[in-house]
């Protein structure tokens, strides 16, 4: 392993010999900066645990998330049901774990859709300029005026609530800010000296675009995508909480909180609403910390000492 990645061993030495950081590869410098961000590392570790739990859901739970157990209705936690039962008598621990699958996949799919749209529209806009740029950017301006959640609700009410509709709608309406980011980044990178140098050497326009400019767009876009996943998870939770997203019996962290709308449950049965709420809070917090760490690590102005 080490032999294949000489930069990894170099990273270890750099703490002792700061001069070496000048010669380290960009990847090593990136990883070093990211690791110094303690909250980002903590967030990353937490996310790895959440993802592992979601992937290994059948092995870390004893009960099916949709199975209704007699006598488990609103039952307090026991050794067998470590987080007790919900209003319908289903095991809350397994619903939280399986709900993680839903939340994470909605977040990832929705953001993949919006990042793809943003990349296409932003590149067209930044590359062609002129009328194309004008039309795409005005469309972006208009889309950004709509309060996203209200617009999503309206579309969901027409198409009907389901996990796939929610993924698609969040994704299809979430691109404007990233498209603007891609365009802005292309416009600024286009003016840099190395692009001029490539042009002087006679490199084709298309190659300049894909080989020289786009790589510089990807770093900030990855940061935006990370925050986007957090935002999409929150949106899905909100929609499912309102009954407009993922519908029971399929568990989602948002629809599990639905029961807490009753003051009776809110007051007496904390295990019904606290676990899914904390799951959303901690996961989104962890993703935001990782996003923050990525942004700092990508920023070449951040010094290593």
């Amino acid at each position, binding site marked *: 392993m080490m032999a294949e990645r000489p930069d990894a061993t170099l990273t270890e030495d750099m703490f002792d010999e700061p001069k070496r950081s000048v010669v380290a590869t960009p990847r090593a410098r990136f990883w070093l900066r990211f690791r110094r961000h303690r*909250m980002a590392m903590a967030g990353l570790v937490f996310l790895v645990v959440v993802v592992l739990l979601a992937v290994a859901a059948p092995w870390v739970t004893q009960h099916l998330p949709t199975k209704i157990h007699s006598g488990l209705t609103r039952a307090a936690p026991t050794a067998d049901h470590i987080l007790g039962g919900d209003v319908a008598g289903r095991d809350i621990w397994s619903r939280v774990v399986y709900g993680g699958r839903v939340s994470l996949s909605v977040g990832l799919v929705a953001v993949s859709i919006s990042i793809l749209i943003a990349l296409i529209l932003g590149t067209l806009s930044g590359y062609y300029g002129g009328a194309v740029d004008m039309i795409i950017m005005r469309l972006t301006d208009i889309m950004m005026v709509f309060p996203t*959640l209200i617009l999503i609700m*309206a*579309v969901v*009410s027409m198409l009907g609530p389901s996990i796939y509709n929610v993924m698609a709608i969040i994704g299809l309406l979430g691109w404007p800010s990233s498209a603007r980011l891609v365009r802005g980044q292309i416009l600024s990178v286009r003016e840099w000296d190395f692009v001029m140098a490539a042009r002087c050497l006679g490199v084709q326009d298309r190659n300049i675009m894909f080989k020289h400019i786009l790589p510089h767009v990807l770093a900030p876009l990855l940061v935006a995508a990370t925050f986007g996943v957090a935002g999409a998870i*929150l949106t899905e939770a909100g929609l499912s*909480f*309102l009954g407009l997203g993922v519908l029971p019996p399929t568990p989602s962290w948002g629809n599990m909180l639905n029961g807490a709308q009753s003051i009776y449950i809110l007051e007496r049965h904390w295990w019904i609403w606290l676990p899914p709420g904390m799951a*959303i809070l901690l996961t989104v917090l962890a993703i*935001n910390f990782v996003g923050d760490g990525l942004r700092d690590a990508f920023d070449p102005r951040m010094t290593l000492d």
Partner: protein
Amino acid sequence: MSTYILRRILLVFPLLLGVTIINYTIFALAPGDPVSAMIDPFELSQMTEEDLQAAREALGLNEPVPVRYLLWLGQAVQGNLGYSIWFNTPVFDVMLRALGNSMPVMIFALLISTIAGITLGIISALKPYSLLDSVLTTFAFAGVAVPGFFFALLLIYAVAIKMDILPTGGVTTPGVEPSLGNRLSHIILPGLALAYETTGSLLRYTRSSLLEVLHQDYMTTARAKGLVEHVVILRHGLRNALLPIITILGLRLPSMFGGAVLIETVFNYPGIGLTMVQATGMRDYPLLMGGVLMTAVLVLLSNLLADLSYTVADPRIRYEEG
């Protein structure tokens, strides 16, 4: 500068037109008979099939979509957004009543988050990387990460149920003589729930912006003049650090409307958010369409206001080129 202001105001109109086109296109796909949306429900119940046909013809509903859009737009600019199916009244009236309930909560939330966000941000920036700074930064991150409705539930649990000092929801307490105090007590918890996210982002913004400004040359100049450190920071640093806050507050408004949807549902508070949730549940498309349009127009106007106050607040900005 006046040319810039004029141009900025004129720019609102094409955006407004775009908003109505997208809004109309989305709702043109909605199922249901559009004729029932445009006629007073009482009259509608008295009409025969021939009357309905005639009404469709008169309203232009047999025309192609672009023509129908123009006819709808002509009505919309006069304030006629059709009739709510669920409330049996004009959409405009329903939205106005809901807005009247939402506004106090939103204004309270904006005030609280601006004051708390900026104050805590300054405290954070004055002692960077201290324990207090870490606590405040975590507080700010949690504000952006916590779902507004979950925070609202926690507030109800702690303040309304356990401490029992504020109501759990509604606009007034049923059975109690309506008074301003009673009305205001119902605004506090939803307002706080709505304010947390904006507080968090303003705190983080103020902190990083102030930290950046502290290294500027004019700060060194101010110190070299022999000014006391807190005068340097508050008078010279803060003024420059806080200018973009106006823009940030303007940009927060769309997500505040989104937050209001969930928080008003939790508090059963009949503002714009709860009305939209009810409209979604009832498939009341005219009401939904009017609500989307109205919130979008409010966002557009507040962005304009933010931009204009920014040009007034920052004398360095000169928009000669526009």
